[in-house]
């Protein structure tokens, strides 16, 4: 049984600037955890610390522990490449590989993992596209470039690409911010579907979205986790004055 992610005393820096301060947070397994907060408060940085993507930025540094499946992903012997295979990520702007076909985009992670067998590839690509609710729209154009899809389709293609390697956790950094309301609604439905099998952490600017999809929500401000709790509680009876100010639109 998956046991989610436990973050303890997480600190992160970009060069000299300290952007995350002592974050403690427990992400429940097979649930959606949302991260909200004003721009620049460290949401992206936080989520990128969960699959060791933060450190790919030159000069970036992390201190703290992130336990996933009982193992600290920051302990010395751990290979970040392995971590990223287990913990997938979807970015704010859809970023399919433009020179690859739809099929090859979804198969990219599998191929990187050494899967060569055509039958296995076919099956897992189809399954991932079904899971990302994209299969019906692209099944006749698997050989066409991924860049030829609409923005919402491209984002679902990226979700399919992340799902194809069957990660245990899916991190999503504002996955809908470049999409229209209809595409957004589709992705939200999809998130609710996916949480049956996956642990999901989603950053969002949109509080309604957090309220709709998330079981738990954390509010970040200036690099600190101000409040974390069940979504309904955070939005109806926030404990911290700053949270209340933010969700009622008094700042940010």
């Amino acid at each position, binding site marked *: 049984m998956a046991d989610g992610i436990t973050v303890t005393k997480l600190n992160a820096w970009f060069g000299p600037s300290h952007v995350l301060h002592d974050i403690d947070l427990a992400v429940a397994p097979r649930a959606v955890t949302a991260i909200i907060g004003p721009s620049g408060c460290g949401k992206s940085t936080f989520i990128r610390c969960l*699959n060791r*993507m933060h450190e*790919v930025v*030159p000069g970036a540094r992390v201190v703290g522990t992130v336990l996933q499946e009982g193992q600290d992903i920051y302990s010395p012997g751990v290979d970040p*490449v*392995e971590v*990223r*295979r287990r913990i*997938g*990520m979807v*970015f704010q*702007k859809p*970023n*399919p*590989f*433009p*020179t*690859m076909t739809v099929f090859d985009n979804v198969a*990219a*992670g599998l191929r*990187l*993992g050494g899967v060569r067998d055509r039958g296995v590839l076919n099956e897992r690509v189809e399954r991932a596209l079904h899971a990302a609710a994209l299969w019906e729209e692209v099944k006749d154009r698997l050989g066409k*470039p991924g*860049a*030829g899809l609409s923005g919402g389709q491209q984002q679902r293609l*990226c979700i399919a*690409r*992340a799902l194809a*390697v069957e990660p245990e956790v899916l991190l999503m950094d504002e996955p809908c911010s470049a999409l229209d309301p209809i595409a957004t609604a589709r992705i939200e439905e999809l998130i609710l579907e996916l949480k049956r099998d996956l642990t999901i952490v989603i950053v969002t600017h949109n509080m309604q979205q957090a309220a709709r999809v998330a079981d738990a929500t954390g509010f970040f401000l200036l690099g600190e986790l101000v409040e974390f709790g069940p979504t309904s509680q955070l939005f109806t009876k926030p404990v911290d004055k700053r949270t209340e100010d933010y969700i009622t639109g008094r700042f940010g």
Partner: protein
Amino acid sequence: MAVVFGRAGGAGTATPTIPPLVGARRARRRFGDRGFREITRAAGLSLVVMVAGMAAVMVHAAWPSLRRFGWAFITTSNWDPVAEQFGALPFIFGTLVSSLLALLLAVPLGLGAAIYLSELAPRAVRPPVTFLIELLAAIPSVVYGLWGIFVLAPWLRTWVQPALGHTLGFLPLFQGPPYGVGMLAAGLILAIMIVPFITAVSREVLLAVPRTQREAALALGATGWETTRVAVLRYGRSGLIGAILLGLGRALGETMAVTMLIGNRPEISFSLFVPGYTMASVIANEFTEATSDLYLGALIEVGLLLLVLTLAVNGMARLLVWSVGRGPTVVRE
């Protein structure tokens, strides 16, 4: 300027609702806009006219040869100014072979250096090395030629060619006496000259690959090299081909260094040890001797061929390099 100001000011006072100063500034700006547009348009047009005019003059001057030899000019190998018999095949062969040989040697090196500089090198070494490479691209070709004659050719003659003859001498490519100068020397010097070029342009292309592409690969669990291969090289593919073609364009037209090293003998041979001749070299060498209209026409026809070849290669190269900067939409193909 003063006149403009006065006139526009007058217009301003004629319509009292507009403050005079605004009217003056507007008019002056409008005049500036139009003047600027006309001047730049004239400059742009004159360039086009110049190129077209040059081509026309060349065709005209080459006309005796074009009419006399037709297609035979590029399919026959007899170049005999005394008998007024001109076939340019050995020059075309020499240009193509020396350039392709140069590409063969320069592409792995140039791409490798570009990948190192854009993906792997420590941040601190990137600027100085990049600067050095750009400096190399600026060295005049006659300097390369001198170095080739005094260093490269003797080295080839005493060490490389005998060694190649010993070990790979069964291949037609490496047969014949070691002269030093010849196709191999020309290809090598061209390779050395275009490596900085290919490196500099490829590096720009690789730097133009968005960070989001690299992150997409990394987040899928790609290692550093896999990220380069899956996200960076693939994305920049057409731009890299453009960089290579740009190098080719330069190699095709390069004159001085090649003339100094290729041996200048109109011969078509499989062996890289044998001297050859290129289109650019024959023009440079024989232009002053071309006394008859036909001889001159033949040389100019060679020049015309070279012009068309390099224009085509460069045009294609620029298009490809440019397409990478434009992002995914054009890579659709």
